């Protein structure tokens, strides 16, 4: 405490004048005077008395110095002095200062921005008490070398719960979108069906009321619901009376028993409502063959590793496979940690971006080290004089470092501001492909990172020049008329080579990203996304029989057809690039002996109206599409894609052939196929995403003849192709829907272009970031080359003058200087090629349609780099040719 008090006092002494030197002087004078008086009193003559007193007192100057040290903090004082001096120097060289600060600010800002994303997405811990012990599980089947991911079969989950020892809690959930009615407008909610152990595993305290508990898992006539904080705020005005209120979801009354806090972000931060298993228990399939969209969530026991739990689950799956060979023999369990399930999609992109910004920062450092060195040489004389006056080397190095630190910190604050703006735009654009994007921001860890980076940067670009400038050799050089470090300026050219090399790596990355993006945009989608708007509808099974379902859509299509501006309209249970639809094995005649074991190529099937193909712009290659005559009573028909024709009837006419993907029979021994007649062939459509070719063939059946597999009739997507802006039609469609069934919400209204853009979002972002970083690197490398060469030219003015006086032509001299630049850039390019070959392997996963050693890229980038560096060389070289030999010789 005493020490702290003294420290504060001394710190105050830095700024205030608590005990000015004048006061000490007065005190000392009084001391002296009293001593003299005493001496005189004891009989000395005044002169001797004064002399004795002075001898006894010791040195006044030394005392004052010691006193001053005690009254302030000398270390900080010199720091402030250095800072003041540094700031004055920076102000005096506005050119150097602004270039240096801008370069660094760009580098630090880019690092701050990318790090804040990495921090929010990957580093920030998940908001659940035992997040590191949470795992997700689904099932998958291996058959004929293909892996088919599936959800968890209800009965398998029951067996897991009984047998598995690794879990403290083992819950289950599935997405269960629900329609909220009874409020002014029907609304589609992002619902989740979850078991009590789902909530136990996450372990979050409810904001109001309670979470789901064990009794909610039982079938009940009075089901309950848990609201998300978001829904509670937006829809129920954060009313505390929400508990025990009744809400209507899909026509069923639920009692609200709790509100979960905003930190409950699973399975999505957009989840509106969680409902218990109870109301759905009756619909859970009793066949292990049926995987009803469930995912299991487990909280591992505290000392069980993920690997151990995984092994246990695989053993259980194997056991079930032996027990139920018909359904489970090829089925196993896949377990991922919650953390991995969230970040695995973006991890590699983010790490590549982080690598790229580090490169940018390195280039910035190289440039600055170069500039500092050049500037330092101009200051050699000043430093030598100070050294001669007794400043120790450490003191000089400290001053130079303080100056770099000052630069770095100014640049850091500018960089943070810049990153803040960039992030605002980026987060504002709501990229849906990045998880936890809403958490991205500049917080204390990010600021800490920035501070650390700036200190590192200051040391990187400041320490080496500082050591070099204050070296003995440099001090010696002051004796020359023009002080220099050495004629060839040592390592400087190597810095330029490194810089060009780094820039090359970034540029290669950028070009590969551009090529990836352009291959992605030219992927044959199989449909035309322009001017198509889609919206979803879900008819509650409780109000609509199969016939009513068909009638509803026929009715809707007729009404929509009459709307002005609609060119084509269709409904479909699947949407390209979004997925949906279902999968099954598919067979042609004759049927194999055991069609369930031999799945054939597998198909994605969907129920569509005839207008779907026209509305989506899916080209009909052969035959016809569905008409209203393809009804429940007519011959079952099917439209297949070109891949199916290649798989089943290569080189033959498929029209009129029969295929089956539905089996009516009770079990494997009794397949009873439903044969459908092929009436048309359409182009293959990218179903899941842009980069994954379909592994299955695609087939379509009329919605009036829905697939036998559908237990309940699926939600449908209405597609409209319009002449103009498709969004304008949405309200008219809403009115038409409401006039048929006012309790039916229209949801997920999006244009197909938005879906395509969504699929391109991550590659577009990677490309944009890499291109801007590559451009930045190119610019910095050009500045670096220019800086080094113009410095070297100015240092060699006299030498060049002599050469010219001795008869060298301007062209000779120009060539001489240019050669220097070209050699540096060429060496840099070589280094860059090597660096790219090594580092591009890391981004292989992000590329599509272009190889990491793409020859065109490796030709183009060096050409661009060499051109730019030649331009950067040419400016100082041209200055040389303007040298007047006579003046150059007189040049000091």
């Amino acid at each position, binding site marked *: 405490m005493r020490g702290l008090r003294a420290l504060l006092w001394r710190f105050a002494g830095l700024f205030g004048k608590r005990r000015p030197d004048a006061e*000490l002087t007065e005190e000392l004078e*009084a001391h002296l005077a009293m001593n003299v008086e005493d001496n005189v009193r004891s009989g000395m003559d005044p002169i001797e008395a004064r002399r004795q007193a002075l001898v006894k007192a010791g040195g006044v100057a030394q005392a004052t110095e010691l006193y001053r040290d005690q009254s302030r903090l000398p270390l900080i004082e010199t720091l402030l002095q250095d800072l003041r001096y540094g700031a004055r120097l920076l102000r005096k060289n506005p050119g150097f200062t602004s270039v240096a600060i801008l370069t660094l600010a760009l580098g630090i800002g880019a690092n701050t921005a990318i790090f804040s994303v990495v921090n929010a997405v990957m580093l920030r811990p998940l908001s659940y008490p035992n997040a590191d012990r949470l795992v997700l599980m689904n099932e998958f089947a291996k058959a004929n070398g293909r892996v088919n991911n599936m959800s968890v079969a209800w009965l398998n989950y029951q067996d897991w719960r009984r047998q598995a020892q690794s879990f403290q809690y083992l819950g289950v959930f599935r997405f269960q979108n629900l329609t909220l009615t009874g409020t002014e407008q029907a609304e589609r909610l992002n619902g989740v069906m979850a078991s009590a152990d789902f909530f136990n595993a996450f372990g979050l305290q409810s904001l109001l009321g309670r979470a789901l508990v064990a009794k909610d898992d039982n079938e009940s006539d009075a089901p309950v619901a848990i609201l998300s904080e978001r829904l509670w705020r937006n829809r129920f005005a954060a009313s505390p009376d929400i508990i025990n209120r009744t809400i209507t979801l899909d026509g069923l009354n639920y009692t609200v028993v709790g509100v979960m806090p905003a930190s409950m972000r699973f399975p999505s931060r957009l989840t509106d409502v969680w409902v218990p298993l109870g109301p759905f228990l009756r619909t859970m399939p009793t066949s292990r063959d049926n995987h009803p969209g469930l995912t299991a969530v487990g909280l591992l026991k505290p000392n069980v590793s993920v690997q151990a739990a995984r092994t246990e689950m695989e053993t259980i799956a194997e056991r079930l496979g032996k027990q139920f060979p018909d359904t489970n023999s090829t089925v196993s369990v896949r377990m991922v940690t919650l953390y991995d399930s969230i970040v695995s999609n973006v991890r590699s992109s983010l790490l590549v971006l982080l690598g790229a910004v580090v490169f940018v920062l390195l280039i910035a450092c190289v440039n600055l080290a170069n500039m500092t060195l050049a500037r330092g040489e101009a200051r050699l004389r000043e430093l030598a004089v100070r050294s001669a006056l007794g400043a120790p080397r450490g003191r000089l190095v400290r001053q130079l470092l303080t100056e770099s630190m000052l630069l770095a910190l100014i640049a850091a604050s500018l960089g943070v501001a810049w990153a803040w703006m960039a992030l605002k735009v980026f987060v504002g654009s709501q990229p849906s492909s990045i998880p936890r994007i809403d958490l991205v921001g500049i917080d204390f860890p990010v600021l800490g990172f920035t501070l650390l980076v700036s200190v590192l940067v200051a040391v990187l670009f400041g320490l080496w020049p500082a050591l070099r400038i204050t070296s003995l050799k440099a001090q010696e050089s002051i004796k020359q008329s023009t002080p220099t470090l050495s004629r060839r300026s040592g390592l400087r050219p190597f810095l330029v080579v490194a810089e060009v090399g780094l820039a090359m790596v970034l540029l290669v990355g950028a070009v590969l990203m551009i090529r990836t993006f352009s291959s992605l945009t030219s992927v044959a989608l199989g449909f035309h996304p322009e001017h198509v708007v889609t919206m979803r509808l879900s008819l509650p099974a409780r109000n609509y029989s199969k016939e009513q379902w068909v009638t509803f859509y026929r009715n809707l299509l007729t009404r929509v057809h009459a709307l002005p501006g609609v060119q084509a309209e269709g409904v479909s249970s699947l949407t390209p690039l979004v997925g949906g639809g279902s999968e099954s094995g598919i067979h042609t005649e004759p049927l194999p002996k055991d069609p369930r074991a031999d799945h054939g190529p597998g198909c994605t099937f969907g129920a569509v109206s005839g207008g779907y193909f026209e509305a989506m712009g899916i080209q009909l290659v052969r035959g016809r599409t569905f008409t209203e005559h393809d009804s429940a009573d007519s011959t079952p028909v099917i439209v297949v894609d070109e891949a199916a024709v290649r798989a089943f009837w290569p080189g033959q006419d498929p029209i009129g052939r029969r295929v089956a993907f539905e089996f009516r029979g009770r079990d494997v021994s009794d397949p009873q196929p439903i044969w459908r007649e092929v009436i048309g062939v359409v182009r293959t459509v990218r179903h899941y995403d842009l980069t994954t070719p379909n592994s299955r063939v695609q087939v379509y059946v009329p919605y009036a003849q829905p697939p036998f597999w559908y237990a309940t009739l699926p939600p449908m997507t209405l597609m409209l192709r319009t002449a103009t802006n498709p969004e304008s039609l949405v309200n008219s469609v809403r009115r038409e829907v409401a006039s048929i069934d006012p309790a039916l919400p229209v949801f997920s209204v999006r244009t197909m272009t938005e879906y395509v853009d969504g699929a391109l979002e991550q590659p577009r972002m990677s490309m944009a970031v890499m291109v801007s970083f590559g451009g930045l690197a190119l610019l910095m490398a050009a500045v670096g080359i220019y800086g080094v060469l113009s410095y070297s030219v100015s240092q060699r003015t006299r030498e060049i003058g002599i050469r010219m006086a001795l008869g060298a032509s301007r062209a000779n001299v120009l060539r001489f200087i240019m050669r220097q630049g070209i050699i540096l850039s060429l060496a840099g390019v070589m280094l860059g090629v090597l660096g790219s070959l090594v580092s591009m392997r890391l981004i292989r996963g992000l590329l599509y349609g272009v190889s990491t050693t793409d020859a065109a890229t490796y030709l183009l980038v060096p050409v661009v780099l060499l051109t730019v560096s030649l331009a950067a060389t040419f400016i100082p070289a041209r200055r040389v040719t303007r040298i007047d030999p006579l003046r150059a010789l007189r040049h000091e």
Partner: protein
Amino acid sequence: MGEKKDVWQGTLALMVLKTLETMGPLHGYGIARRIEQISGDSLVVQYGTLYPALLKLEQEGYIAGEWGASENNRRARYYRLTRAGRKQVVKETREWQATTAILARFLSGEEPS
């Protein structure tokens, strides 16, 4: 601030505090004289040791200084012991006595009984 003096300053601080405890408020010259007299003139207290030490004690809050008039009506800065300073005298005296006792035993070569 060399290291030699730190030891000296440690003892000086106690001497200053003890002086102020015995004599009451006193100016720097008075303190120096008192220490020199008590030591039988075997110690010389110079500006360079006394005033930084006084400042340090003041910063630590053991003494407080203010300007006043001396016997001869001269303006001088008077130091007095604060309450924390009084406690500190007791504490340091005890510590110092313990130290010297140990050292004395050590130097006399007595075995502990």
